[in-house]
């Protein structure tokens, strides 16, 4: 048994849920989280999106520009959805591939992370089943 923790964009949640059903793993738990990733060291990576956001603002001052930059380069916290998925060992590869396929964007940064950890036991509350049967 493995626990897969996937942190994805808010607007990719329904696509991710759909993809999980398609790989045969319907069960998951999701929470809204705030987070940040690695700092963006190369400003050119976020330049295009920064300009798009600033154009939306119309007139802007240095304060607005600073806020937008911080939002994009990972200095400040931003909202994401965190999925926790319990899976059989043999399904892990398919699930990871599906999540990566659905969540990848052209933005280069901020698409999320996936972590896989071992689970020692699981118990279904309704029946008391343990181990693989409870997943």
């Amino acid at each position, binding site marked *: 048994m493995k626990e897969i923790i996937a942190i994805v964009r808010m607007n990719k949640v329904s696509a991710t849920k759909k993809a999980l059903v398609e790989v045969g793993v319907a069960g998951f738990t999701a929470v809204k*989280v*705030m987070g940040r990733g690695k700092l963006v060291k190369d400003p050119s990576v976020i330049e295009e999106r920064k300009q798009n956001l600033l154009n939306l603002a119309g007139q802007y001052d240095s304060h607005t520009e600073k806020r937008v930059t911080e939002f994009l380069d990972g200095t400040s916290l931003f909202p*994401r959805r965190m999925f926790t998925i319990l899976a059989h060992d043999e399904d892990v590869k398919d699930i990871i591939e599906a999540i990566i396929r659905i969540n*990848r964007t052209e933005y280069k940064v901020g*698409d*999320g*992370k996936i*972590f896989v950890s071992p689970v020692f036991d699981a118990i279904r509350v309704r029946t008391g089943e343990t181990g693989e049967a409870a997943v």
Partner: protein
Amino acid sequence: MMMIRAIVRPDKKEQVLEELSNAGYHAATMIDVVGRGKGKGLQIGGILYDEIPKSLILMAVEDADKDGAVDIVLRCARTSGTGAVGDGKIFISPIEEAYTVSSGAAGL
């Protein structure tokens, strides 16, 4: 790789995150949670408060960085001086694999 789950006071969260960032552990995820610890909650008058708000910080780090990150959380989240009941807990569990979605690359 290790997953560090630190439960800290909400008012210490900012400082913990800032110090972690300064030390090079920038990536983190935050969740607002409620819970109780060994202290069984707070009894004030006739009312028992056993859903106390805390902040849960999730961090994935390389094995070698674990002690450094834990030290920072311990130092920043502790109530000044000797610490106090309710300062929080840190749990560490193994991560077998990690992937970055944008590149599909394995590792942190």
